[in-house]
């Protein structure tokens, strides 16, 4: 690969990286929130009041996925 080619490639990569950012942050936030609701909510901590609805509904999955439960 030529130096000019490498530089062009680096520029393209940098631009892509910047335009990726909002999507990656969104994906990370939604992924972590979902992970939290399946695994932890209404256990040790509870975001929307301690109703136990989420906990009880996904109860079996929570145990089977290895999250702390009782």
């Amino acid at each position: 690969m030529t130096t000019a080619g490498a530089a062009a490639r680096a520029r393209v990569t940098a631009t892509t990286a910047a335009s990726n950012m909002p999507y990656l942050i969104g994906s990370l936030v939604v992924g972590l929130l979902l992970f939290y609701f399946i695994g932890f909510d209404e256990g040790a901590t509870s975001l929307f009041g301690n109703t136990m609805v989420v906990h009880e509904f996904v109860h079996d999955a929570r145990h089977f996925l290895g999250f702390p439960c009782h």
Partner: protein
Amino acid sequence: MHAKQVIPRAALAGGIGGLVAFGFARIFAEPLIQQAIDYEDGRDEAQDALAAAAGKPAAEMGPDIFSRTVQANVGIGVGMILAGVALGLLFAVVYTVVQSRVTWRPRVLALLVAGAGFLTLYATPFLKYPANPPAVGHEETIGDRSGLFLVMILGSVVFLVVAVIVGRRLAARVGTWNAALLGGLTYVVLSGVLMALLPSLGELAANVATYGPVATETPQPLRDAAGRIVFPGFDADLLYSFRVYSFAAQALMWGVLGLVFGALAERASGRTGDAVEAGAPAEAVDA
């Protein structure tokens, strides 16, 4: 691939992985979960009988918002599929960031990232704090257990990042093979040190105060005032089977996620298996 292309494909692949893991769970895990719940109910009754004999009030029961039928068929399905989607979204972030730094073809990188997810988010924490069926785990320690489990997950993720950095730094000096081995060793040692430092669940203050010195929260035989066993401890084989199936289900979920995403990513980037198999020089130019 742009994140816009990666994220929906990864979420779909994760959802499919969750669906497959749900099928597995419905067949293999649900009978075990029911046995564990039956044990828990029997033990609660025995405990209430003991309390009544001693003139103490019966213990409070947890809420029954959903029937067992709903939990065992719908709840676990929704839970597994959404967990798969969540893991797919996290997978997408790592895949997008890593893809421009390596020369592997999409399906190989997809399997490696999925393997890294399985290792850090499940397998390593599992070694210290394995999955437990209902009846195993004390209500009053849920906060401590959640915190410790999170520490294991975060530690594993950080350690794998460190191991990859170490491996890549050393590659030029000691060669790829040895660098990969040293990176792996770094991960094993760091994880091992963290596991040694964290308490086992039986060592938590609340447990020592109530149950004395035991290693875990697995229910021991229930004894009456005279020390006679009135209800057995938790079935060791049931515990073993549950954990093996839990491990297998996670491997299945991550495996399907990696393979399905890999296939989707290859199609999106216009690659077909045949063209690449025959065209090694094309790969070199591409790299």
